[in-house]
């Protein structure tokens, strides 16, 4: 447990989950499933700072694993091995990404999207501004809950969600006026909070994530 995941840039953390998900359909037999699961467990154990968060993610991922495995058994020929492989494939699809996502620094995501992925500047800046409002969205939800309770109004999720959306769109209108007042729309040259740097660790973990995702396909080709 080196804590390496806490030092990686957000794009690499996203790539860990995306590559695992993209590689998961190649998990089609029990030996390949066990190999893929083992390598991801080793990779995660080596890179996380503590076992607690991956264990929590595992507890959460067990629900879709059970759902997919059981339904595959029930609706896919009642073959226990096929069902087990489906469950383990879901683990590969979901667990590495769930763990890596927990270490993403949302505040840095916009910098990397704009500078490394060349996402258009205006959109990256708008996304960054919106991502900073995630905490605000939670606060709004709790405010709505408190005010509805105080007024003895029903706290139905649907009406709360509607009120959150109204608040969000009005907030977006205010924010965009403030941004345009500061020259956001007409800016010729844009600067970013911090440079999007790629360390040696970022590159090596990205390469490792790609190799791990290709492992099931490689094993499948070798076994045939």
């Amino acid at each position: 447990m080196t804590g390496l995941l806490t030092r990686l840039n957000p794009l690499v953390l996203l790539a860990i989950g995306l590559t695992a998900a993209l590689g998961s359909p190649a998990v089609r037999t029990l030996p390949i499933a066990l190999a893929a699961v083992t390598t991801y467990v080793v990779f995660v154990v080596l890179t996380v700072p503590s076992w607690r968060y991956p264990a929590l993610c595992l507890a959460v991922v067990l629900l879709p694993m059970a759902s997919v495995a059981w339904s595959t058994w029930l609706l896919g020929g009642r073959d226990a091995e096929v069902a087990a492989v489906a469950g383990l494939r879901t683990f590969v699809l979901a667990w590495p990404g769930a763990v890596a996502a927990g270490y993403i620094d949302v505040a840095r995501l916009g910098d990397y999207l704009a500078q490394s992925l060349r996402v258009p500047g205006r959109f990256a800046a708008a996304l960054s501004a919106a991502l900073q409002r995630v905490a605000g969205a939670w606060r709004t939800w709790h405010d709505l809950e408190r005010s509805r309770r105080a007024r003895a109004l029903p706290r139905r999720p649907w009406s709360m969600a509607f009120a959150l959306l109204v608040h969000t769109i009005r907030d977006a209108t205010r924010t965009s006026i403030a941004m345009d007042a500061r020259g956001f729309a007409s800016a010729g040259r844009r600067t970013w909070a911090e440079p999007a740097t790629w360390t040696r660790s970022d590159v090596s973990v990205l390469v490792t994530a790609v190799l791990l995702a290709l492992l099931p396909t490689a094993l499948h080709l070798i076994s045939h």
Partner: protein
Amino acid sequence: MNSALTSTTRYRTIDLVTIAMLGVAFGVIFWGWGKLYDVIDLGAAVGFKPAAALLAGMWLIAGVVGGLVVRRPGAALATELIAALVSMIVLGGTSWGASVLLSGLVQGLGAELVFAVFLYRRYDLPTAMLSGALAAVFAAFYEWKYYFVDWDLTWRLAHLGFFTVSGLLIAGAGGWLLVRSLARAGALDSFPARRS
């Protein structure tokens, strides 16, 4: 490019910020819905799993609403994708890890395609329902490949049927009604959708 076309494709700041912030709001809603849906889904798996897709249209509503509100090329796709991203990174994320980004991409593409076919000029109820339905068809094919690859074809087709109905009604009609309610609440005064 003539000025009429420019006015429907050129993004104003408010369009960009609204897409991003709608994505965040729907991401938070998806996160909460996901916790409930996991339990419903597991319950359905014990009984008749394809029927769980009847409620899956909820996952598609961000794209339809984003497209109906902002009315620019890419709005539906971007709103759905941002909602997926946010649901993945807030408070411990989702039980499906980063695969929700793939789902968001596929669902957003389905919703976007319908608006594109109508050249971003039709935003009525049938268009919204078609948008939700195509998003559901795309999402069902994605789930066949990534989740239910071993199901017998009959059950996969049942899943597709349930998902499409859900997309048509929850995401399509539900999304259209939601946008109409938002317009009546005065939240869309800066958008063409205010006339909904």
